[in-house]
């Protein structure tokens, strides 16, 4: 079980960070911010 749960949460945080970076990067490339900023 431990061989699953720990990697899962580690990977979850890593992936979340990855996707957040992706979102930020792509939105910035289009001249926008991630959170709405009129």
């Amino acid at each position, binding site marked *: 079980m431990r061989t*699953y749960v720990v990697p899962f*949460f580690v990977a979850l945080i890593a992936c979340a960070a990855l996707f957040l970076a*992706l*979102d930020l990067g792509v*939105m910035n490339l*289009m001249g926008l911010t991630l959170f*709405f900023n009129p």
Partner: protein
Amino acid sequence: MTSKQITRAGGFGAAHRHAGRRPPVWLLLAVFVFMLLPVDFAGLGAPVAFAQDASSSQGAEQVVHGPPPSLSAADYPQIAGINARVFVWLAAQLHLWFAAFVLAVPIFVFIIEAIGMKTRDERYDSMAYEFIKISITAYSLTAILGGLLAFSLIIFYPHVFGYLSGIFKETMFFYALLFFAESALLYIYYYGWYWLQGGFKKWVHLTLGLLLNAVGTTLMFLANSWVTFMMSPAGVDPAGVFAGDAWAAMHNFLWNPINLHRFVANIAYGGSIVGAYAAFKFLSATREQEKAHYDWMGYTANFIAISALLPLPFAGYYLAAEIYAYSQQMGITLMGGIFAWLFIIQAVLIGTLFLSANYYLWCGMGRSDGAHRYNKYVKYLAIVIIGAFLVWFTPHTLVLTNEELKALGGPYHKYLGPLGIMPAKNTAVNIMILFTALSFLIYRRANRIATVSWVSAGNAVQAALFTAGILNILFLGIYHGYFTNTVYKVAASIPQVLTTLIIIAVSISLDTVMYRGAKEVAPLRWGRVPDRAQYALFMLAVAFTWLMGLMGYIRSGIRQHWHVTDVFRDNSPDAFTPTLGYAANVVSVGTILFMAMVIFVFWLSQVSTRKSEAVGYWKA
């Protein structure tokens, strides 16, 4: 489904190995480039050359052609008992269905042949040959329908054809000539299949396949330019006068979006038609070996169809975005005006496609006894995919013009209305695509157990990837969709798409690595699949055909009462934009005609192998 699996499954024959000499790569590249040059010149280089000729010899803006004539109903020739518009519509659509098929087949035949060459497994080669055999008869039907289309345009819409051919004369001329290349290549590729075997000859054969694809794609791109010119004209002034720059007319706003969309969609479509062929042969097969063969073929075809289906919504989105960029009016009429409900029908069709393809995969899991342990997940996949489909299918407000708004009454549902806007749709389609990929991943694992030491961690990472990705997609869809403005709303769809593509790429790569050297739980038995799975393949082919017909209607209908948008007015008796019900009926008739012709094509490929014993007929 590697060749190892097939062999172990007790499939037919053993893979033989050829010890062929491989020629130097540079030689092949040289041959390739040399043979491509005339194609390049013929297809794409020439119009620029001609344009330069026209402008350099005559100096400044010169009226080469146009303006288009101002027509009245009497200028459109009629034949008693024939509805000109429906006739041209059906001729065009039938031609497109067959053309899509004959362009798509060489693409995956090329890939399958290449795989066969790499794995040295003859079964791939035989399957590739069988695919190209089907498309040979289809090729001649494509040409017949093309001729019918050209004739019907000349007969019923002579002024339109005159105007367009005045602008596109060079490309139309080269298009016609290029068919010599296409036919030559196709026939040599097919008839020379068993002659050009082994070693260097096999490479020559593969190169011919590549050239066949290059020529076919060029032909499609040329024809696409005429059709997109009618939708988003370029290279002509507002009065429709053409000054001679054929490249400008070709390279209009919608040309590349349609090129991309049709290229990818053709592959998906071709896969589905071949899948229907395989399904039919499977159901008709009597021997175990035959059933196994056609089951494998159906699976491959479905795999091709799904792989091409996954990126298709994005190509379609790009096309719609370009329509909006060209003319906001056209864009709004398309998705928020009178054609809005059409996209709901499209949603139903695409939902059918995804459900059929997934259902086929789930049924296919039964090929191996090892799949039982994954059966429990299938219902969750089904629930999510059906849920996503329902969201996608929910309509929103119809921004109607004139009396249409009054006729419809109230515009939207209080609770379901918000599900009708684009962010909800984007989210739903991304989820559908992701879960289809997930179905595929589970299918791949069905009969295997990973033997690497880090299996648990590997699965954890996969689960985390999917979880994080889905949360991200939901965040982008819900937050940006409902709490920001239009610009953010639209922009958020890009990282959404990228999230989906990243998940698919990473998880498949990870899975491949994780299952290297995996143990087989139970053999994968090709042929052991229920008949209803074959009906899923038919559903796929029919739905795809109908969907293509519907999209063809939109492409043409969005021009409404214009032959060439804003430039050449349509004043024919049938210039009215038909209701969706009418259009659906025409598309249905077309689909039935097409299916009948396709069944004829399939039957022919069988007939050629039949022999009758003519006892006592011939002189001794």
